[in-house]
């Protein structure tokens, strides 16, 4: 479970990204973070990954206050999470297989485990037959599938996605969302910051709306816009 308690985050340049934000995300939930650009959605994901730390309040993960972690402890926190970005962030000089393998090498997995696990995950995202290709030989949707495979290969309990469909056409975006839903159905918590109205509306998941650093809406089975048509 992830819990934000009265979280404040002000950046060094004085920008207030979050102000007294409080919410809870249970294990296995699928949550959309919505709101205008600069509202504070990405800050929420950064605080969960401890890429940034709060300037006030607490963030708990399974009951542990992660704002108190030392720099040396942060990598071990991140091993519980997978992350997917809008720009995929694949290594251009490595094959699909190597991009996924890389994530397992980093956490010190054995070669045997890597050989067993990577094909399974590539199969899950439907890219087994493109394992030897380089990212530039793939379409945007396929590249995002590789990024997704890399994010889940270490079996994280939380998957964080920052605009994962931002660079994809609607059809491909829906295919990627199907994959997210399948991953979620296996028990992985998903936190997704997005501007994709259609997707949020179709998926009927929990929606947390952030505006000017404040949580202005937290709705189960919500749509991108609320009944008043905000955003």
């Amino acid at each position, binding site marked *: 479970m992830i819990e934000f308690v009265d979280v404040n985050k002000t950046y060094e340049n004085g920008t207030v990204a979050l102000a007294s934000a409080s919410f809870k995300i249970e294990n296995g939930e699928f949550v959309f973070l919505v709101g205008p650009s600069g509202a504070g959605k990405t800050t929420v994901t950064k605080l969960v990954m401890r890429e940034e730390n709060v300037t006030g309040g607490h963030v708990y993960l399974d009951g542990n206050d992660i704002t108190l972690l030392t720099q040396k402890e942060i*990598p071990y926190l991140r091993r519980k999470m997978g992350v997917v970005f809008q720009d995929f962030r694949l290594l251009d000089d490595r094959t699909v297989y190597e991009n996924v393998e890389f994530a397992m090498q*980093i956490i010190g997995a054995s070669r045997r485990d890597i050989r067993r696990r990577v094909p399974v995950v590539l199969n899950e995202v439907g890219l087994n037959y493109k394992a030897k290709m380089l990212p530039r030989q793939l379409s945007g949707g396929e590249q995002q599938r590789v990024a997704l495979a890399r994010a889940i290969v270490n079996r994280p309990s939380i998957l964080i996605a920052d605009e994962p469909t931002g660079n994809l056409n609607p059809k491909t975006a829906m295919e990627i969302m199907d994959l997210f839903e399948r991953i979620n159905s296996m028990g992985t918590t998903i936190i997704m910051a997005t501007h994709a109205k259609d997707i949020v509306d179709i998926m009927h998941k929990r929606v947390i709306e952030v505006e000017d650093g404040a949580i202005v809406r937290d709705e189960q089975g919500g749509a991108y816009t609320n009944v008043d048509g905000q955003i």
Partner: protein
Amino acid sequence: MSMGRFKYSFSQARKNIWRNGLMSLASLFTIASCLIILGIFTMLTMNVNHITAEIKNQCEIEFFMKDDANEQTVTRIGEQIRAMENVKEAVLFTKADRLDYAKKDAFEGREELLEGYEKDNPFSDSYKITLKDISKTSETVSQMEAIDGVDHINNQQDFVDLVLAFSNMIKKCSIVIMAVLLIVAIVIISNAIKLTVFNRRKEINIMKYIGATDGFIRVPFIIEGMLIGLLGAVLAFALSSWGYVALSGYMDKLQMDLLTLLPYYETAPVMAVIFIFAGCVIGMVGSLISMRKYLRV
């Protein structure tokens, strides 16, 4: 570090060197150049020490006794001299020995000029003294001057002072130059590795998100730096060995007793250790410096 992780880090380091071929080569030659200059100063220091030691061995004080010194006085003075702390050896050179020496050496072929001197030997008895520490020559000479029966003492104080001052100057200069060279080499290799790190910032960034520890990210770069340093050291050792052997041969041809270089087999192990150590340290420190910025994610 587990074997698997070391293998991974080593293969990454090898790939990085290959991927950044030109930059790696430039770093390698830079380190080799710095090490060669470092080696020149190390060899210079070693040889100056060697030559100083040779000069020290050949530096003698000669203690001349008064003409009327009898056998007992000569023995007593010998005992007093040998009892001194800084005296390594004192060999008696009698007036008869000196006359023989003069006949054989200075007056060779014209010995008749020295005929008759056996009965009225104009020379004095003396002790040829070798000191343990020539830097304390003047103190030892002062002590000797207080011995009853001294006529005069010949010493090479000016020459000794000159040799010592020169050798000290060379040592000090070498230390300063070696320190500067090490810093220069570290700055250069840290810039080279900074380029590698910059090229791989995306990878480092992803590694941080996935949960790689700083140590895990650093190790391949450290190995890369050390490998470049090590290759630079091997190149520097090969070139300086060739140079040293050539110079030694040239010096031998000159046949100057005091200016013979230390044999190669004596300098080579020292050079090898210094080069390998300095090469690895330069590579490692250079890598660590260049990585700091990119680990902050």
